[in-house]
C-alpha cells in the first residue's frame, strides 16, 4: 500500500488553426465549401453590423441597455454551424451570429433589447431558447433537453453557451454533472472572454484553464482559440459527432475577448488597459476570417461590398418592421402583460387586468381632457 499517483485518463488539448495574422495550419483546416464559408462569414458580419447599429440606436434612446456581441462571432458561428435545425441551441446572450444563422430575426434582437417580450418569441420551427439573463441557469435547461433526447431516443444534440464568469455558478457545476451522469448529448461551450463585467478570469478561478474542469466530470474537454472560427468549428464538430453517437457531453473553452464594454451601461476603462484592449483588438475574429476568405479566393472586394449592402438593407428593413410592429396594439398595449402568463387567465388575475384596463381608460380620458384644458399635472 504505498502512496501512488492515480492515472487520470484525460487530456486537454489546445487547438488553433487560423492565427491572428490569418496564417493557416493547413493540416488542421476543415473542409468547408465556398457556400458554407460564405454563409458563416455572412452571419458573423450580420451579427457585427447588427451589434453596431443597436449601439447607435441605444445612444439615440431607441434601445435599452444591452450586452454587445462584437468579438464573439467566431465562437458562436464556428460552433453552431455543426448542428441542424432540429438540434437545439441554448444561448447565453452574446451568440448573435449563431442565433441569426439558426433563424432568429433581427427583429427579435431589436425588440428584446428594447423592452418588448415579443423579442423572445422565436419564429416557429426554431429549436432555440431565447437569451438567458440569470447567469448559468440556462445550462441546466440544455442538460434537461439532452436528457429528454435520450429518454425519447432521438439522435439530436444540444449546443449551449456560457461565460467565464458563469463557470463559477453552482448551476454550471450541476449542469455539467447531470449531463455527464446521464450522458446527455450536450456540448457546453464556454466563451471565455476573460472578464465577467470587471472581474478578470484570474480572480474568477485559480485553475489554469476552464477546459480542465472537464476532468472533474469525466468528460472530454478542449481549449481553442475563440477568435478562430475554424478552430471552434473543428472542436465543436468532434464534440457534436461524439454526442450524436452516444458519446455524451463535452466541454469546449473558447478563448476570446469582449471588444466592447460589458453592456452599454459599462465603462471598461475602469478595469482594463488600452494596451490590453489594443492587443486583443488585433486578434478579433472577423478580420482574420475575411483575410482567410480573400486568401482562399472565396471572397472578393466586390462580393464583400455586396454582402455589406445586403446586410445594411436587411438591418434597415428590420428597423422599419419593428417601428411598425411596436405601434400595433398587440405590442403596445400594456394589458398584454396579463395575457401570456398562464394558458388560461385565472379569475383573480383577470380582475387585476380589468383594474388596470379601467385605470388606463380613465387616464386616457384625463389626458384628453387635460389636453383640451391645457393643464397636465398627473404622473407618467
Amino acid at each position: 500500500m504505498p502512496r501512488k499517483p492515480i492515472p487520470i485518463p484525460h487530456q486537454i488539448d489546445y487547438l488553433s488553426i487560423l492565427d491572428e495574422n490569418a496564417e493557416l495550419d493547413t493540416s488542421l483546416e476543415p473542409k468547408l465549401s465556398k457556400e458554407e464559408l460564405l454563409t458563416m462569414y455572412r452571419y458573423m458580419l450580420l451579427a457585427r453590423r447588427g451589434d453596431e447599429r443597436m449601439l447607435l440606436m441605444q445612444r439615440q434612446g431607441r434601445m435599452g441597455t444591452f450586452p454587445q456581441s462584437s468579438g464573439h462571432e467566431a465562437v458562436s458561428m464556428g460552433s453552431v454551424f455543426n448542428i441542424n435545425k432540429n438540434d437545439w441551441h441554448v444561448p447565453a446572450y452574446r451568440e448573435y451570429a449563431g442565433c441569426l444563422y439558426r433563424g432568429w430575426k433581427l427583429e427579435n434582437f431589436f425588440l428584446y433589447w428594447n423592452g418588448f417580450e415579443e423579442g423572445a418569441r422565436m419564429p416557429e420551427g426554431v429549436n432555440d431558447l431565447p437569451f438567458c439573463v440569470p447567469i448559468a441557469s440556462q445550462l441546466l435547461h440544455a442538460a434537461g433537453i439532452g436528457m429528454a433526447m435520450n429518454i425519447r431516443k432521438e439522435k439530436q444534440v444540444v449546443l449551449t453557451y456560457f461565460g467565464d464568469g458563469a463557470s463559477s455558478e453552482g448551476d454550471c457545476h450541476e449542469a455539467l454533472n447531470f449531463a455527464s451522469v446521464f450522458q446527455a448529448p450536450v456540448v457546453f461551450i464556454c466563451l471565455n472572454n476573460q472578464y465577467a463585467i470587471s472581474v478578470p478570469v484570474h480572480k474568477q478561478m485559480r485553475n489554469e484553464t476552464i477546459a480542465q474542469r472537464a476532468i472533474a466530470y469525466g468528460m472530454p474537454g478542449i481549449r481553442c482559440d475563440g477568435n478562430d472560427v475554424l478552430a471552434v468549428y473543428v472542436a465543436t464538430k468532434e464534440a457534436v459527432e461524439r454526442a450524436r453517437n452516444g458519446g455524451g457531453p463535452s466541454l469546449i473553452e473558447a478563448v476570446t475577448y469582449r471588444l466592447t464594454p460589458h453592456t452599454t451601461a459599462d465603462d471598461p476603462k475602469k478595469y482594463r488597459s488600452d494596451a490590453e484592449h489594443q492587443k486583443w483588438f488585433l486578434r478579433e475574429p472577423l478580420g482574420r476570417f475575411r483575410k482567410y476568405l480573400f486568401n482562399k479566393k472565396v471572397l472578393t472586394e466586390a462580393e464583400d461590398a455586396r454582402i455589406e449592402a445586403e446586410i445594411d438593407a436587411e438591418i434597415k428593413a428590420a428597423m422599419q418592421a419593428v417601428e411598425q410592429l411596436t405601434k400595433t396594439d398587440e405590442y403596445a398595449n400594456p394589458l398584454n402583460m396579463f395575457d401570456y402568463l398562464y394558458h388560461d387567465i385565472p379569475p383573480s388575475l383577470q380582475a387585476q387586468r380589468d383594474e388596470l384596463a379601467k385605470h388606463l381608460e380613465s387616464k386616457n380620458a384625463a389626458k384628453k381632457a387635460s389636453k383640451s384644458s391645457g393643464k397636465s399635472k398627473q404622473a407618467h
Partner: protein
Amino acid sequence: MAQINMAKAINLALHEAMTRDDRVVVLGEDVGIDEGVFRITEGLLAKFGENRVIDTPLAESGIVGTAIGMALYGLRPIAEIQFSGFDYYNYHQLECHAARFRNRTRGRLTVPMVMRAPYGGGIRALEHHSESREAIYAHTPGLKVVIPSGPRNARALLHSAIQDGDPVIYYEPKACYRLFKEEVPEQMETLPIGRANLVLKGKDITVISYGASLRAALEACEILQEEDGVNPELVDLLTISPLDTETIVDSVRKTGRAVVVHEGPRTCGLGAEVIARINEHALLYLEAPVKRITGYDTPIPYFQKEMAYLPDADKIVNACRETLEF
C-alpha cells in the same frame, strides 16, 4: 376501489399518469430503486424503467432545471424534491424560468411540469424537514400551487397538475400520508385547479384551511358542532394559487366571521392574503376580525416542540369561540 391512504393515492396517480402518457417522467433523489424516502414512487422503476424513473445526483437546482429543459422539449416531467425545506435550492430555477417561459416567449414555449415535495410538520423529523413555505410560491406569479388534504383529492389534483399546461407546485402534507384512508373511485379523475372545496356547509363561521391543517380544522369544527352547537362552514382551499376568492367571499358574506388556519409562518402567509381578499370583497359583512391560527414567525422548532407550533383543534376552537363572541 379499495380504501387507500394519501401516500398510496399519490402513488396510484403516478402509475396512472405514466401509463396513459409516455411523456410523463419522474426524477429526483432516491425516487428509483429506493422508491422515494416516503415510498411515494413505489413500483415505478420496476414498471417504467430507468429511462422514465430517474435517480438524479443530489442537486435540487439540477433536478428542477433539467425538468424545465425536459418540459421545454415536450416531456411532462414530475420533479420530486425530497423535502420542501430543500426546494429553496431550486427556487431561482422556478422563479426565473418555470414561471416565466410562457410569458417571456408570448406563448411560444411552455413549461408543463410538476414539482412535488412533502411539506409540513408533525412527523418528528429533523431540522429542515418540517417546513411549510407555500406562501413563497403563492407569491410567485406564473406558478400554480396545489395542496391536497386527503387521498381522493390528492390523486385527482395530481392528475390535474400533470395535465396542466403550466408549472404546478404540488405540496404534499406529509403528516397526512398515512393518517387515514378514503375510498377513491375506480376511474381516474381530475379536480379543477383553482377551486376550493366546501367540506362542511354551515352558517355561523367560516373556517378556511388546507393541507395538514385541514384535519385540525375539521376536528375543531366537529367540537364546535358538538360542544357549542355552532354550525361552521369549512373551506378546503386545495389550490392556494390562484386562490378561489369567490368561495371564500361567498362563505364569509354568509357567516360574517372567519378563521384562517395554516402551519406556515404568519407574516405574509396565506392567511394574510385570505384576509386581504375578505377585506376587499366582504368587509361590510364582517362581524369580527378574521383570526389567524398559523405557524408563528419562527422556524418550526425541533420536533420536541413542534406540536406547540402547529395549529391544532384546541387553538382553532378557541379562535372560533373568540370570533363568535366578539
